[in-house]
């Protein structure tokens, strides 16, 4: 089914919003629980259009995120590329999962992403210790179903699969 080129603008805007949300100010108590917006965005588009948004795009957006957050260059890039790789490999299965099962699977992908960031932080000597840095994995589990629903229905209903 060929319906012309899928539109690109919804995706670009989606990624820009995700980038902004990654650094939007939050109250101190909520800040450690900030969902990993960029990782969720990469996973979402890797499921919907695995041929177009795969490892390469994930890596590039990760590099932007590194600069934006002042992290070591390559940290988020590597973690996002890995998350995209797993997602693209599993995308056929992820698509047919019921929503709760999909959330759990995506939570596991985000966990891989979170642990990579955690380890790289540890290696570059910036880790405060404790398990609170892994809190975003839990928020990803909660935020995925509403995020997917909103994006499916309102943000990009017909960009094609």
């Amino acid at each position: 089914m060929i319906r012309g080129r899928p539109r690109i603008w919804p995706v670009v805007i989606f990624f820009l919003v995700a980038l902004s949300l990654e650094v939007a100010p939050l109250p101190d108590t909520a800040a450690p629980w900030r969902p990993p917006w960029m990782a969720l965005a990469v996973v979402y588009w890797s499921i919907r259009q695995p041929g177009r948004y795969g490892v390469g795009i994930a890596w590039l957006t990760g590099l932007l995120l590194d600069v934006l957050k002042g992290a070591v260059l390559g940290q988020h890039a590597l973690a996002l590329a890995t998350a995209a790789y797993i997602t693209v490999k599993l995308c056929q299965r992820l698509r047919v999962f019921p929503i709760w099962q999909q959330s759990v699977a995506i939570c596991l992908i985000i966990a891989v992403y979170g642990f990579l960031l955690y380890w790289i932080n540890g290696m570059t000597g910036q880790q405060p210790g404790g398990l609170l840095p892994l809190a975003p994995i839990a928020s990803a589990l909660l935020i995925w179903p509403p995020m997917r629903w909103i994006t499916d229905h309102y943000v990009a209903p017909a960009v094609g699969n």
Partner: protein
Amino acid sequence: MFTRGPSLGMRLFLLGIFSILLMYFDHQRGHLQTVREALSVAVYPIRVVVDLPARALVWGGDSLSTRSRLLDENERLRREGLETRVRLQRLEALEAENGRLRALLESTPRLPDRLLVAEILSVDLDPFSHRLVIDKGSRDEVYVGQAMLDAHGIVGQVTRVEPLSAEAILISDPNHATPVEVNRNGLRSIALGTGDSGTLNLPFLPNNADVRPGDLLISSGLGGAFPSGYPVARVTNVERRPGEPFAAVSAEPTGALNREREVLLVWNQMPAPDVPEADDREADHPAEDRTEAESVAGTGELAAEAEDGE
């Protein structure tokens, strides 16, 4: 469907190797400043957009405040201005006297510091470190290691400079150490950040050190990062522990960390001995906060030894 060019696994492998090289050169060597600068200009609009709501809030608060509140504020500012000017009169006389005394002692005169007001962008970088972004960068001649003050004292220092913005670390960051001295008697020490913006630790003061709650800690100027003589913190608690070599001393920063929107950048024009060190820092700034903390911690040990010697 997915395999145009190298296979997916191969792509991830190559990108992984590339990322690791990037991390190595960025963190260990600091060779990638130009890449980071170019990309930072690309993401600068995002920082500005993220900052917009906070800015709008401030603007809205300003434009919607009532006349009586403005009058009150005006009155308060006028009173403060008067008090400051009165104190400044005495300060000018003291400064002249200090200059004469220094000339008598044949020591280098203190030069006046150059100042620039920078605005803090409300951008969250990392919830576990006390870092922030300001809206002045290399375009305004900001440099790595530059001291950052607010109206009440030292707030932090610049760790990374980009063309339009700069990143700074607060003195309350666990990776930051500030060389201080007690204003009352000149006792030198190091104030370490704790990760809590209301507390600093002074772990290198011996049990018999002459320090009391309420003492003002000012920057000592050792280490070359901060200009000397600016307030840093006020001692809140001194616990002398007979079984331990050092007392547990904590202090509260005088500057409003994390609460103000504006900070002052100071061009520290200290003469000769600090200049090569500053150049070194600019040349290899990969882990600037850590080298900073290490170099500062080095002076801390020296200071502690000196105190032991006394």
